[in-house]
């Protein structure tokens, strides 16, 4: 998406870009539908009162999947030119994971 070469002469690619934008929008609406669907599943799991041994992993996977859709489709991380953005975000996510793991294991009351 972030090709500087195509923006040099946008007139040439006008129809093509419009079509590409429409296709991208279709993908984004699909991911929105999937996020709504996953939210429903997550709430149903809680209402159905499953044991937390089963419920927790499923809830966390559903949340992770929603966040991936949000990052890659809504925040355009699937586009080219997001290498450094991904480096920043995943570095943050790594420290986030270690922080939560640490607090869960060494804090007691």
């Amino acid at each position: 998406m972030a090709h500087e070469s195509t923006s040099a002469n946008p007139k040439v690619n006008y129809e093509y870009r419009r079509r590409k934008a429409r296709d991208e929008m279709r993908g984004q609406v699909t991911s929105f539908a999937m996020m709504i669907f996953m939210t429903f599943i997550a709430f149903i799991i809680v209402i159905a009162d499953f044991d937390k041994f089963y419920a927790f992993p499923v809830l966390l996977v559903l949340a992770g999947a929603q966040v991936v859709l949000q990052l890659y489709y809504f925040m355009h991380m699937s586009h080219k030119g997001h290498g450094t953005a991904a480096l920043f975000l995943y570095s943050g996510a790594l420290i986030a994971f270690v922080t939560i793991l640490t607090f869960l294991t060494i804090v007691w009351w």
Partner: protein
Amino acid sequence: MDMNQKYTARTWPESPEKTTLEGKNKFLGFWLFLGGETVLFASLFATYLALKDKVPGNDHALAADMFELPLVFIMTMLLLTSSLTSVYAMYHMKNHNYQKMQTWLLITVFLGLAFLGFEIYEFNHYVHEFHHTFTSSAFGSAFYTLVGFHGAHVVVGLGWFTLLLVRNGKRGLNLYNAPKFFTASLYWHFIDVVWVFIFTVVYLMGMVG
């Protein structure tokens, strides 16, 4: 490059948010900021998880006693939908349709305001019905810091959109303000990312046990 050059849909560059050097820098700097925000929210989540349901006496309400699924569900739908409306706004930004971009951003702001209204109701409800306050327990402090910090981000996001819309109301869309609208919408999506974890970890997992 003249930042205030007028464009039409046909002369508008493909990635207006990254056409200027300033836009490129904003884009990169903003993702670095989001990496930092991830760490910041992680520390609040970690604190909350460590102190969840840690109350000084049996008369204090716990997570499962207070949380109500319908309220959380409505708030989740509002914020998720507002994420989609800001995607629509950026779609029109890339097609250089300024009016539609403004309309969708305005809808986004109203959805965010509705979310905020529900959150204020929720906090007020906990304080008055359950005496669950910021200082009542470690659980209370951790809960309000985490969820309140997210709420504060919503306030900042709404203020950001509103200021951009007002400041650029008559300017029209150009390479000066396109990166600004783009970063604000990234911020708004990130707020929804954090909320996905809040409704899962705090509310849903809090209800399960």
